[in-house]
């Protein structure tokens, strides 16, 4: 049986990791704490932007550091609402159908995301059932430490996790599919025999074109991407 590995942010949904983070930070127990959390996040923004350019894993670590001090109870309490506001409404038209088609072809569907399990588990359920490889916060005494449990799901690590998953579940990677929007996921895409670019960024679109990977546009398609399709 084949497996289909899906990146989530930008691939199945128009959100990125910032949207749910912003939701949680703005929904602290009182407005003062929300302002404080947002201010700390804002101060860290330049570092995050720089990290995003260089290393997706470092970006994830910096971003989730803003969760420090939030209680597990609060995160769980807000999880459904966060999923509804920051994720469910942002699912691309056709994404659910694509996942459903993979399942109907007998594929095991696996979400591989840098987002938190708090949001990925409800998404997996919403999509009709999927396995999840995602990030988990570290907690101490019921409060988030701002660190992520190892392994941190990002960039090349995704490829390693996908390989391990396939090995563990008896999938031949050559017959497996992987879907992503981002150039940072090229290692994961390259790990399978059937990579597919979904709403690709410019660098991934160019790469997909070079290697003749299928390109899907679930969201609104940028004009530049349309032009790229027909260039010689």
């Amino acid at each position, binding site marked *: 049986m084949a497996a*289909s590995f899906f990146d989530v942010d930008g691939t199945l949904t128009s959100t990125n990791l910032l949207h749910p983070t912003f939701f949680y930070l703005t929904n602290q127990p009182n407005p003062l704490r929300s302002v404080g959390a947002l201010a700390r996040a804002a101060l860290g923004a330049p570092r995050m932007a720089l990290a995003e350019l260089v290393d997706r894993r470092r970006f994830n670590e910096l971003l989730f550091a803003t969760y420090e001090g939030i209680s597990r109870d609060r995160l769980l309490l807000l999880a459904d609402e966060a999923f509804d506001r920051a994720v469910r409404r942002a699912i691309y038209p*056709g994404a659910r*159908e*694509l996942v*459903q*088609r*993979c399942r109907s*072809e007998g*594929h095991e569907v696996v979400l591989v995301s840098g987002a938190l399990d708090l949001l990925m588990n409800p998404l997996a359920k919403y999509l009709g059932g999927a396995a999840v490889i995602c990030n988990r916060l570290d907690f101490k005494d019921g409060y988030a430490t701002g660190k992520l449990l190892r392994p941190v799901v990002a960039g090349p690590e995704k490829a390693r996790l996908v390989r391990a998953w396939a090995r563990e579940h008896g999938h031949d990677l050559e017959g497996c*599919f992987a*879907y992503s929007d981002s150039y940072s996921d090229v290692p994961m895409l390259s790990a399978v025999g*059937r990579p*597919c670019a979904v709403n690709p960024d410019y660098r991934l679109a160019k790469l997909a*074109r070079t290697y*003749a990977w*299928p*390109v*899907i*546009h*679930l969201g609104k398609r940028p004009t530049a991407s349309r032009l*790229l*399709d*027909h*260039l*010689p």
Partner: protein
Amino acid sequence: MTTQSSSSPKAKKRTPSGTPAPAEESSPLVAVTRARPRSDHPLVVTIDTKSAPRAVFSGDQVLEVDLPVGTRVVYPRPPMDALKDVDAAIRYAINHPTGTAPLYAKLRPGMKVVIAIDDISLPLPPMRRPDVRERVLTIVLELLADHGVDDVTIIIATSLHRRMTASEVRHVVGDRIFGAYWPDRLYNHDAEDPKGMKRVGVTDHGEVVELNRKAVESDLLVYVNLNLVPMDGGHKSVAVGLCGYKSLRAHHNPHVMGDCAYMDPKASALADSVDRMGRLVEKALDVFHIETTINNRMFDRPLSFFHKNEDDWTAADRVAFKGLAFTLSRLPQAARQAVFEKIPSPYGVTGVFAGECTAVHEQTLERSFAQYLVPIHGQADILVSGIPHISPYNVNSYLNPLLVQVMAQGYLFNFHRGAPLVKKGGTMIIFHPCSDKFDAEHHAPYIEFVHDVLPQTRDAAVMHKQFEEKFATNPAYIEMYRRGHAYHPAHPFFMWYWGEAGRRHLGRVIVVGADNDYIPKLLGWETARSFAEALAMAKTPGQSPELAMLHAPPIVMADVTI
């Protein structure tokens, strides 16, 4: 015996329109002694020592080729006269249909009507506006409105072809209809919509008929066809245009397609299968067919010289050809493609027929054959043909290597009735660069087919068994078909099967002007740097082969007797 020598004074006699004179109008021809006596139609021109070089397409470039003396060149018939008042002809046809009640008599207020129309694969190149489909739709929609029919949906019958873009649809249906119906009530058929297909039944041969649900559940289905070649229209309109993969694979397979003369429905196993499915459709649905035929006026000034015998070219024609050849040779490929894409064809409508499927289609076929068939006696050892830049499957994109194969072994080889123009085991010499180039969106699954399947096998039966299903169920490619503008992932396989009859018949294919060796090799072809080299390769030492050339485009079909 008599034959027409291309440089004879009589050969240079032209009709007022400057096109070669059709048989009915020509006078007795000059007798020329030839080794093999035969009496051919005046549009079959025999090359002699004074003949001009012939113009051929090599993709999006044009070349001049010196053919050996004795080569018979089959020219297209002059364009038939277009109807003077197309709208009147449409109204007459739908009010006086064949084999069924007039369209107005089928209408009642509140009923659900679906109108299906042919997609962008017809005609080639696209027709200058107004497309005849726009004219038919305008009249039919007015009639529906007059009879209180408001629930009207227009579906573009793409089958497993790519979805048409908004601008392409606008070109076909016109601004007014596009503005009123697109995209909610005018859209592309989606053969992979899980909820959008409905099973109609199974034929006595076990062929599953599954069609567009909206069409099946309508009270009346009106099909608006634009017939380019004899394989179009008839039962194929609904049974193929609105079907899905399950239905298509019943006849789009090596077994059926390897045994087909596509352009001669009476000798086509494919047409037989489609007819069976179509008859089932007609039992289950109320279908009103409107078929239209067009002439073969593919080129307008300044390219109208393509309709003429080169020996009859005027000085202006020669200058135009040389200018075109020079310009195209200096332009980059994308610009050459753009040049041809910008020039729609000035086709004239030659017939409008409406009513019951079979009765309508018989009239269509008669008109179509009258335009295209040119009688010729005897087969050739070597068939020569240029490959143009366009096929039904690459409108607004590049003719990739698999489509070159379809054009050579699928279409041009099959432009015959009776028997193939080339003998069994004969050679086909074609002109095309065969570049390893694809449209990344339209032909995404083709790339994998050419670079992954073909290196493993050219055996259509093996492909069908081992690879087709995997492609056809690939969720990524299906998503590209459904939401992008890619052909269905089974389509490249169908393209290979299209060439199967030609592959089985032909001994060799030699391509002249290929810019690489490996693509022709993947297709099972040989390469030659020049026509002379190809000819030397094709000749058996000590023998003098007979050559024939199909001078297309414009479209011409050889009516071969042996």
